[in-house]
């Protein structure tokens, strides 16, 4: 019945539903855009966000972080992995004549720091070498190929995942600590805290232990900015959703208008319904059903449209279109749909109430 009533003025119904479709698409797409941005940013920063990086401080008498300081660090942080590193730089020449400059890191517990695309990162790196996969490609190196540093030959045992956001660009060569044995202290020590909150807490403890007010023995830094970035992304997300919500509000005003027009137009007819004994609640239900149907159809089409937009957006932003089905983004499809139905029913309430409570005598006379 409600369905057929909607069918009577197809153009008007379609236009109102179109408003809802656009509203849903904008709210769901913007929500998903926010989710995509967040996902991308977090995956870029995720691995380093939980680290505390420690280097020799401005007032330190020693060159680098000393072995004793590392031991003290291990005592303080207890659970977290403490990974001392030495660093240098070198140029590698490949058989094909290509040359690449890169940073060299001497580390023992490589597993704690690096993600590998190929091969294994041992937690006691003793003889092999790890190299960034980009550099390996340039130099045409494969697993097991030798690289030379400081007169010593190391065989490549793994490829490092290119770190996308920060610190990327230059190639990286990871060698056993012994390769840089001529250096005394460690250039940096990374404490793997796991997440940015733990990192910040650890950094405070470490700072308090080693440094006085005017005496910086160790420079302790974290990517605490990740937190504020997340806050920023959340704010951005809400702002995007608010913009989407405005268009849905506009759409529901359109539905309100359509329902009002159609009830005014059908006033006599509704009067007949009331005269022949159709109850007020039944008239109310009929009109609300019309509004809900309109909202549901508009919402469904809108959700499908947003899904397409979302697929495209995730493909562009994260390179993985299927990530749109993650709850963090697909929830917006559901929200958009639910919002559409709720908004439609709400905007149907006034016209429905007005039609149902119109006195049949007055309605019939019109």
């Amino acid at each position, binding site marked *: 019945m409600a369905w057929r009533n909607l069918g009577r003025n197809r153009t008007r119904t379609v236009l109102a539903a179109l408003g809802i479709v656009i509203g849903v698409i904008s709210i769901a797409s913007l929500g998903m855009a926010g989710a995509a941005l967040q996902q991308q940013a977090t995956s870029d920063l995720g691995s380093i966000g939980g680290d505390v990086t420690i280097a020799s401080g401005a007032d330190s008498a020693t060159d680098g972080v000393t072995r004793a300081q590392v031991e003290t660090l291990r005592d303080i942080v207890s659970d977290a992995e403490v990974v001392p590193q030495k660093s240098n730089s070198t140029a590698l020449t490949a058989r094909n004549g290509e040359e690449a400059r890169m940073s060299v890191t001497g580390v023992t517990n490589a597993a704690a720091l690096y993600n590998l695309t190929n091969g294994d990162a041992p937690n006691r790196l003793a003889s092999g070498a790890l190299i960034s996969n980009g550099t390996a490609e340039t130099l045409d190196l494969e697993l097991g190929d030798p690289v030379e540093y400081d007169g010593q030959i190391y065989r490549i045992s793994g490829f490092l995942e290119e770190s996308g956001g920060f610190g990327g660009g230059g190639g990286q060569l990871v060698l056993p600590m012994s390769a840089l044995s001529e250096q005394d202290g460690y250039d940096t020590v990374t404490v793997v805290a796991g997440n940015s909150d733990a990192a910040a807490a650890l950094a405070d403890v470490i700072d308090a232990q080693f440094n006085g007010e005017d005496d910086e023995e160790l420079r302790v830094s974290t990517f605490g900015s990740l937190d504020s970035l997340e806050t920023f992304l959340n704010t951005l997300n809400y702002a995007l959703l608010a913009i989407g919500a405005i268009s849905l509000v506009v759409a529901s005003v359109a539905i309100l208008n359509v329902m009002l027009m159609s009830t005014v137009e059908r006033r006599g007819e509704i009067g007949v319904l009331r005269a022949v004994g159709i109850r007020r609640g039944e008239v109310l239900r009929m009109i609300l059903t019309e509004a809900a149907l309109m909202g549901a159809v508009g919402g469904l089409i809108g959700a499908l449209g947003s899904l397409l937009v979302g697929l495209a957006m995730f493909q562009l932003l994260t390179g993985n279109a299927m990530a749109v089905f993650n709850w963090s983004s697909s929830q917006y499809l559901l929200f958009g749909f639910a919002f559409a139905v709720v908004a439609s029913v709400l905007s149907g309430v006034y016209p429905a109430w007005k039609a149902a409570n119109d006195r049949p005598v007055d309605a*019939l006379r019109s």
Partner: protein
Amino acid sequence: MSVIELEDVIKRYQSGVETVEALKGVDFSADRGEMVTVIGPSGSGKSTMLNMIGLLDTPTEGHVHLDARDVTDFSEDELTEERRTGIGFVFQDFHLLPMLTAVENVELPSMWNTSVDRHDRAVELLRRVGLGDRLDHTPDQLSGGQQQRVAVARSLINEPDILLADEPTGNLDQDTGQTILEELTRLKEDENVAIVAVTHDDQMLDYTDTTVRIVDGVIQEVDQP
């Protein structure tokens, strides 16, 4: 025993600053199986009286009795219930719902009541008014006379005690009007309903049992056959 009775009914309307008295103490009654025709000039209060009988409006003073029950102070929802079960309406311009077929229009008053299936009765009624072959036609595929016959069938779907007809032949030509009136006369006896009709149409008087003339809100004469 009267199925519907108006007792000294007064109805006043507020029209701007003026109060209009549309009915000035009307007494009226109709029995089952009886056709009562209300005639009178326009503005005489005919329609107001019909609204009172049809429980679409309540009197300012006086009482309305339906089946010997005083329904004057019934709430709107109670009145709706009485209309649903006891009163059928036929309007001058048919008032069929355009998106429903003939049989659906006839079923309309019972459509929301899922406890009873009136489909068979709807088909039966349409057959009786001669529209057995037009069941699935929509109103715009039917002539005026056919539409009015659908409306008559609709008014009878809930087996009412009273059938109210507001100018039932007003929008029809002479011949079609006549068939409708014959139809009503037949149904009046078959269904044992009281028919109260308001009309300007003189040919209606040939079919009526009682004629009531109302002028200026006062019943002037009652012709009993």
